[in-house]
């Protein structure tokens, strides 16, 4: 298995999957990210990230049934694994800890 380092874009994707819950599939994740972050990830980049996350064991996927709306093609739904959840929490904690260590003064200087 590759390193379990979580990249910045990967973290956003992971979080978005968490937000979308049971409705997390390719296009939905892309649109959700567009709405919330004002950035426009390409669909290829997104799938590439999803595939990496799955390789790292942070998410798992299952195929849904065929739908009318997309030419009868199936969707692949993603949800966060326990490992993914742990990584997210850890990343969040680390960030908070670092954040707390910043003295108030330096903020003023910014």
């Amino acid at each position, binding site marked *: 298995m590759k390193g379990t380092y979580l990249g910045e874009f990967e973290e956003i994707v992971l979080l978005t999957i968490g937000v979308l819950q049971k409705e997390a*599939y*390719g*296009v939905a994740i*892309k*649109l959700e990210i567009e709405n919330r972050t004002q950035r426009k990830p*390409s*669909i*290829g*980049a997104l*799938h*590439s990230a999803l*595939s*990496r996350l799955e390789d790292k064991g942070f998410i798992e996927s299952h*195929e849904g049934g065929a*739908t009318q*709306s*997309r*030419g009868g*093609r*199936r*969707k*692949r739904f993603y949800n966060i694994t326990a490992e993914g959840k742990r990584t997210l929490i850890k990343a969040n904690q680390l960030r908070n800890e670092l954040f707390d260590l910043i003295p108030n003064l330096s903020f003023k200087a910014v």
Partner: protein
Amino acid sequence: MSGSRSNPPRWPERMLSWFCAEEHQDILLGDLEELYEYRSSKMSRSKANLFYIKDAFDMLRPFALKKRRTQVKNNHIAMYKNYFKISFRNMLRHKAYAGINIAGLSVGMGCFMLIFLYVQDELSYDRHHEHADDVYRVVVNDYNGNGEVSRVFTYASPMHGSTLRSDYPQVITSVRFNPWYFPIIKYADKQFEESYFNYVEPTIFDVFSFEFVEGNTDALNEPNALMITESTAKKYFGDESAFGKTLEVVNRGESKDFKITAVVKDFPEQSHMSYDFMASWITYEIDADPRGINDYYGNYNYPTYVRMAPGADIAQLKAQMPAMLDKNIPDIQGAKASTRIGLDFQKLTQIHLNASAGSGGTSNAYYVYLFGAIGVLVLVIACINYMNLSTAKYAMRLKEVGVRKVLGARKGNISRQFLVESMSYALIALLLGYGLSALALGWVNRFAEKSLSLNPTDNPMLLLFVTLVALVVGVLAGSYPATFMARFQTVAALKGGRTKVKGRAGFRTGLVVFQFAITMALIIGVTVVDRQIHFIRTQDPGFDRELVVNFWASPSINNSLEVFKSELRTNPNIVQASASSRIPTGRLGDALDATLFNEGSKEVIDFRFPFLVIDNNYLEVYDIAVVAGEAIDQSAPSDSTQSFLINETAAKLLGWASPEEAIGQKMDYGWYSGFITGVVGDFNFESLHSAIQPMILINGQQNKRSMSVKIAGEDIPGTLKFLEARFKAYNPDRTFNPSFVDDLFNAQYEGEQRLSEISKTFSIIAILIACLGLLGLVGFSMEQRSKEISVRKVLGATLASILLMVNRSYALIILGAFVIAVPVAYYFLSDWLTTFEYHISIGVGLILFSGLTASLIAFVTICSQAIKVATANPVKFLRNE
């Protein structure tokens, strides 16, 4: 989906599905589609299209290619195991069918291996020298009046080699040889008559590569130094070291001692030259007649090789040669020397394959490529056989394919299974083919006079190549069955063996047509080659070759020639004897410049015809007809009043309407001067490959090296013994090597004879394989039609009518094959026939005969299968409906 909905272009989708792993396709394409729908509601259609294309390209990322790791790996190994297992079980279950397949493939591969060995050997000549690619042999071309090459000498004049070396910077160096023939060589009590002794320049080591057993490259610097080969050293000195020992060499009565300064490994078998004695050039230069060694023109006794600078342009060097010749040779009969002769350069590595006029090669590129082609054809026929048989038996495997598909096999799996199966066949055939070729190797070696080896350690290329061939055969033979079997619909496959395969018989029929076309072309080829060889051998060459014995007229015989001849004639079994410079079946090598003083018109004609030195019994021995004038002057000739005989072709070329007009004309020929006294009928002095040349027969003294003796048909061994005794009386040291002129005559066509034998053998094999295939095919089709035929029988059809019906369906195949085979065979064979000046024409009868033979073979094969069904009791096939 409503019609009003706009659709994106289709090609990005196709591109993606080609690129993506199957499991990603639905997901990615679905996302693409959904995004497109989403966008077309928000923006213009063309913009949405653009985004769609951009996204499609964006998805071409490595992850999409990737297979999921989880299940696949182990499964594949298990499946391959299963494929092998099923292949072998199927072979065991259908033994006859598997046997036919394996027999065809292994014979095909065996033939291919042998032919590969042969071709590989032929192509490897003279490549062992380090500078092989830069070495060229100097050849001298004679030009006739029209500027065409009339004669090629592979020995050059002595000054050619040295001038090339000194005056042309692109020539690194050159080496000259000066061979003489049949020296007697002595050491202590051992004495042998050798075929060659050579003087050679020390630059030989810069041109050719040698492996030294003893000595080094300084070996040829001193006078009386001699380099010999390892086997020669063994022959004279046994296991002792040869280095420093002395050999006595006797030539034309003179004896000279040589000290051995080097022993080198023998020339490999794949060499166009093979010299055992190489003495230092300086020895020769000390003794040589200075007139002889300074020639630029004539005196073609020096095999000469140049080594060019790497990358030098040989054509450019050749272009400089006319100027070099003109500078060094005075005008010949008033014309520039370069209009009479030219120098050419023959690449060392091509000498063996391009056996042209007078060259040392015995083989011919044409035949090598031809054998190569036959080898490939035999293999292709075997592959086609496999394809045909395995698809014809498709019904047998249909259920299996169906079940596999139900259990989740995809197209790819089924294809792979059948490829594995054909590979298994190919591998088994490879082993058997190897065995077969090992069995046949001895025969091939004897026949081709080679020592080919199947031992993989001697020939690692063979192992590599043969394995590659097996793989290619496996894929080639398996490709069609694999795609064919994989294409069946699951349900159709499961429903049962009677599935109609529409349109698919077309390809198979095509294969059979192709296979039969090859077979027919081979039959036509064999027939034509056979007829041509028969034609040559029975063609009247214009002289009598029966019961004529030929042997060497040594100088001691020549010194008392008339006495020797009359001694021979005392034996009642000897009809006549004659000495001459050359004999028919040889080549016309020597030519001199001639001048004709046309008395009537006071016109002088210069020309150059080859000549023959004969004595007054020559025409009698060879029974050559005299068409005008007298046979030959019985009085002793002198150089000033020579009587010349010319042949009819010469008379025609010199412009006389009838041979009679030539009689009494005054002529100078080289150093001879005299009158034309007779005209002889044309005869094929050289082989039927070339046209009859104009020639001049001179009753002269010099160069009569060949003794021809016409003997009676009785007690031939006794007569030969007598001849040997007389020969030994004059040459006690020499071996008597008689040969019969009719053997020499046949030997001229040895290459063709060999071609005929080999092509016959391999064609028969190809035909047999093709028959095996047809046998399998017809057998299968009979099995399928057994019910139909039984019903016909019940309704009163006769055996004949059934056989006719069955054969009719194959008649078209044979006709189609015939139509393809005839032009192809005709094209190649006419090409081959043009290598003969005298040849048969490929007539309608010959082609029809071949076509009928092939049809007959097919007919017999088909009937052998059809009769089984047609004569069986109908109940046997109708019972279980």
